[in-house]
């Protein structure tokens, strides 16, 4: 909502060229109605897609059959909410056997293989393997640093429930453990994004281009336009092309690689953090 208000403010400001008018609720007029409407449409579309993206994922993979249908649904909802609120992808994987694969690797394969993780690849995967009775909490991206001090506490906190086969309780407790540290280091605030833009080159290039183009346009016709062309004094229909010759010579082709969107900084590549134990 705040974003929407900011955009409207900017539109009003540019239309009335004064701060005072932009604060007053002056009616904008017909042409800006359409731009307002379009913008509203655009922003709504953005807001709709973003949360939808976050909730479309399955977060509980109960291959170990530890939970009932309703428990899965409940836990899924909780994980959805926490993932969206704190911009970190949360998952719980249970299994009867990992076939020799360590829970850490299992979590990594799952996370990276399915391209999970938010924009800065932040996520947490809890692996519970009945075969080896392993519990493992794997952290990725930003979450590595967030949870580093907490991992053992969390594992110790849920292990009793796992031992007592209270799996649903364990997972719900796990979710609540996610919230506390995430509360302290939430996703970057709007201002931090602004600072990120301010220290990077795209903003400067755009501003430089805008200034150059506008100054150029205004200086262009300083002396006046030249209206005379090669046809101005030509007697109409008097031009005769008496000879043409077009001889094909050669073709040159150049290919330049266009770099796709620059990869974001990912600390530690495809690795993960976390810890675990037995239950």
């Amino acid at each position, binding site marked *: 909502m705040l*974003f929407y208000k900011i955009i409207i403010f900017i539109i009003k400001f540019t239309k009335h060229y004064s701060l005072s008018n932009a604060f007053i609720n002056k009616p904008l007029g017909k042409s800006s109605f359409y731009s307002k409407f379009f913008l509203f449409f655009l922003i709504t579309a953005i807001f709709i897609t973003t949360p939808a993206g976050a909730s479309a994922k399955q977060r509980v993979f109960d291959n170990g059959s530890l939970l009932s249908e309703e428990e899965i649904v409940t836990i899924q909802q909780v994980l959805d909410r926490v993932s969206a609120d704190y911009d970190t992808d949360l998952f719980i994987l249970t299994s009867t056997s990992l076939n020799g694969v360590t829970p850490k690797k299992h979590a990594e394969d799952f996370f990276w293989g399915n391209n999970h993780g938010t924009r800065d690849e932040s996520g947490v995967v809890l692996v519970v393997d009945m075969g080896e009775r392993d519990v493992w909490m794997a952290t990725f991206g930003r979450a590595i640093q967030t949870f580093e001090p907490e991992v053992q506490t969390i594992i110790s906190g849920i292990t009793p429930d796992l031992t007592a086969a209270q799996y649903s309780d364990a997972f719900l407790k796990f979710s609540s453990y996610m919230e506390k540290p995430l509360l302290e280091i939430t996703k970057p605030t709007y201002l931090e994004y602004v600072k990120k833009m301010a220290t990077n080159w795209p903003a400067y290039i755009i501003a430089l281009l805008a200034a150059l183009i506008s100054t150029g346009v205004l200086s262009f016709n300083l002396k006046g336009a030249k209206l005379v062309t090669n046809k101005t004094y030509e007697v109409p229909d008097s031009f005769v*092309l008496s000879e043409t010759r077009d001889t094909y010579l050669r073709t040159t082709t150049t290919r330049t690689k266009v770099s796709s969107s620059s990869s974001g900084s990912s600390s530690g590549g495809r690795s993960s953090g976390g810890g675990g134990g037995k239950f």
Partner: protein
Amino acid sequence: MSVKIFACKNCSAAITFNIEAQKWICNYCSAEFDKDEIKEKTVSDSGVEKKEDLSVKLPDLDEYVCSACGSVLLCEENTAATFCLYCKSPTVIKSRFSGEFKPRYIIPFKLTEKEAQEYYSAWIKKRFFAPRSFKTAKEVDNIRGLYAPYWLFDCKVSGYIEGEGRIVRSWRSGDYRVTETKYYDIKRAGYADYSRIPVDGSEHLEDELMEGVEPFMFSEMKDFALEYMSGFLAEKYDLDESKALPFMQNRAQKFLETTLKTAGDQYSSVSINSKNLSVNAPVAAYSMLPIYILTNFYKNKPHRFILNGQTGKIYGQTPYVVSKMIIFFITVFLATWIVSIFAGGAIYAFL
């Protein structure tokens, strides 16, 4: 050598060409006349003679005697029509329009001085970086109208150009941008007729400025008659036909070259390796075309503006105030930068 004054039939006062009415109007009794109805106030040759050039200090001035009030007119060598300094009678110096100096055609003034001022005022205000002093009413007031001498050339141009043409296509293929350039060896030959290419016949009016106010609407051009000069300043040429010819040839050759270059219109770019264009059968008509001139000073340097007295087109040496440009540049830069970091941050944060 006599000076002509065109007189009103009713009251014998001087009549001048009125731009709005496109007719002649008496300044005193407001009677209107068409060209054929005008009576010339006869001035006998005996009464008025060109005196010897007495002023050594200003060698370009000649003396004439005003037939209305008898005072002495000092005119520059090329002034052909002017006003008596004392009685303000519009006078036309007939000798300066006779013989080789008789113009063939004239386009009468279409814009009044006031209209010219309004046009100029609006135009200079649009030049964003021009100094503010140029936009004041006081400066705009200095506009003066004058019939300028022109040579209007008809000619034929023929020739050829040879060179290389390129067709460029560009598209995206996966992760690559592919640019394909096809090269052709081309030759184009042709000819065309040109009519009324203007070359200004006055040495002191800069060619670039004069070309800038073209084109004139030749459909409104009339056969020359001295009556049109009444009420205006006019100059005869000091660049004769043979000296004007090279300027015209240059322009005409460029016209045909461009027409040949763009004939067929299929190439992205053409570079010319050799060309030969010749101008044939030039015929010149000496004509009077209306312009308004304004000279303003900025930092003690003159800046001249020319206004087309028929179409209102303006061209001039507008100075630019460097500090204005810098301030504008910085302002736009800062504003765009601020908007882009906040908007960009918002988009980044919410997508």
